[in-house]
């Protein structure tokens, strides 16, 4: 039968494509963790090997709250009091009092007018542009925004345009070019996940005001710890209340489970409640996560101790790597990329560090641009000074083995190629 032949042919084609991904060294393998998320975890790798305890330097667990006892207790209580699932979207019978409470608390925390919850920040980013913009409008995005923003922009009817990464002159040219559009929306990450650098949000907000544009910020890698009280990049740059839309996740610093939100001006949030397809056609955020996230907001609002500790850890780790002779991306966030440029070198260094008890992942094209292979290290407030000392000792040994300590980009590229 033709249909059966086509189905069999499809399986052959998919197998060949998967083989090609493996041959290119791009196959993503999962490593099984036999422990709660934390600074130290038990990892089974390769598959079938006995789990071994390693120091985790690749989680988004910035504040170390993923397995915090008070968050676990709150989640347990949420489960007991509000149940496991709602079996509904929000607008039919899926909104509990705690959903409304979390939206109110996030609004207060982020300094906006209103908030709407989503099952993930990816959903929030996929939803927003289509919900509020039309073909009379233009979206002007930094060229390094997160993949979910690119997907969201592709779903919208508004014209797409981009500006060179953090290039304010180029952004201004684009804003001037699109003066004829009904709405202009400048779109950026707050902290860029590849390089760990911060968007120049104060300058972006000023340009947006000059050209009568809206500002959108995905603050997933900032909420909870960037800014003096962890309110994110708007607080860091002194523009709280002047950003029209903030999206963020609960899957990183804010407990690390899942879920996200759009927070911003009242009308934009209201439009999303009426039109955002991932909100209208997907189940409500699980009550257990809502309860856990409410406790996370209690903790981060009560004290800055964890974000202060994270800031110290990030500064110390940057200093230790620099002193050891590694080439790192400058910045101030807890995302610290160690630049290796060559994809195989990044994989080899990650493998050797794992053998030394340090869990990091090598990133290379297409996750990062070609010739920009690296190891992305991420700090957590759960890391202690002893952890950092242990990690840098391992990095020094592995760096020496590969002859990259004290080497410039050109020297590394000359030896290993791009």
């Amino acid at each position, binding site marked *: 039968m033709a249909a059966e032949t086509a189905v069999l042919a499809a399986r052959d084609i998919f197998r060949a494509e998967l083989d090609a991904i493996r041959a290119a060294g791009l196959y993503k393998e999962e490593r099984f963790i036999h422990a709660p998320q934390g600074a130290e975890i038990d990892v089974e790798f390769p598959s079938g090997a006995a789990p071994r305890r390693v120091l985790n330097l690749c989680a988004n667990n910035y504040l170390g709250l993923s397995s915090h006892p008070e968050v676990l207790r709150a989640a347990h209580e949420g489960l007991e009091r509000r149940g496991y699932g709602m079996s509904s979207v929000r607008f039919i019978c899926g909104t509990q009092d705690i959903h409304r409470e979390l939206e109110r608390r996030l609004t207060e925390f982020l300094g906006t007018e209103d908030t709407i919850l989503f099952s993930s920040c990816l959903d929030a980013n996929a939803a927003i542009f289509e919900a509020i913009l039309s073909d009379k409008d233009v979206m002007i995005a930094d*060229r390094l925004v997160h993949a979910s923003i690119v997907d969201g922009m592709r779903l919208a009817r508004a014209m797409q345009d981009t500006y060179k990464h953090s290039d304010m002159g180029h952004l201004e040219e684009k804003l001037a070019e699109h003066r004829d559009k009904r709405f202009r929306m400048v779109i950026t990450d707050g902290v860029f996940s590849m390089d760990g650098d911060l968007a120049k949000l104060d300058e972006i907000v000023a340009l947006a005001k000059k050209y009568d544009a809206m500002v959108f910020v995905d603050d997933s890698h900032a909420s909870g710890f960037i800014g003096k009280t962890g309110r994110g990049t708007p607080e860091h740059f002194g523009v709280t209340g002047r950003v029209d839309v903030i999206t963020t996740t609960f899957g990183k610093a804010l407990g690390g489970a899942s879920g996200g939100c759009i927070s911003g001006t009242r009308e934009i949030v209201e439009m999303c409640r009426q039109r955002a397809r991932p909100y209208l056609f997907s189940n409500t955020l699980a009550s257990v996560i809502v309860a856990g996230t409410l406790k996370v907001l209690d903790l981060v609002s009560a004290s800055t101790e964890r974000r202060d500790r994270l800031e110290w850890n990030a500064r110390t780790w940057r200093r230790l790597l620099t002193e050891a002779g590694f080439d790192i991306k400058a910045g101030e966030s807890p995302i610290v990329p160690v630049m290796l440029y060559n994809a195989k070198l990044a994989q080899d260094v990650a493998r050797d560090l794992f053998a030394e008890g340090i869990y990091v992942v090598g990133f290379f094209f297409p996750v990062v641009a070609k010739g920009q292979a690296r190891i992305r290290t991420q700090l957590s407030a759960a890391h202690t000074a002893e952890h950092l000392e242990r990690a840098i000792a391992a990095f020094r040994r592995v760096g020496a083995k590969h002859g990259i300590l004290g080497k410039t980009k050109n020297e590394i590229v000359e030896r290993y190629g791009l």
Partner: protein
Amino acid sequence: MLTRRTLEVPLPERMELGVADRELLVATFQALIALRCEKDRRWEMFQKQLEDDGWKVRWGLTWRAEAKRGDDYEEATGATLDEALSGVAQLVRFDMAGRAP
């Protein structure tokens, strides 16, 4: 058997006809013929159906640009060639940048 019928159009003297000019002329004539003759003007029936259902229908010719490299493919449309190609350029640019989770 269909007979291929062609129309010859004399060009002004000294006119240099580039590839893009040729594409433009071919596309223009094909569009005119399509509007006049395509499938017994079934498009009129679709338009009427939509209007009967309360839609206000507008239509027009548009530029379409494609870019293909290996398995990667992007396409965009626009009212002008500039618009269509800049649309493709934007889409391609999004894919050239790395994207860390």
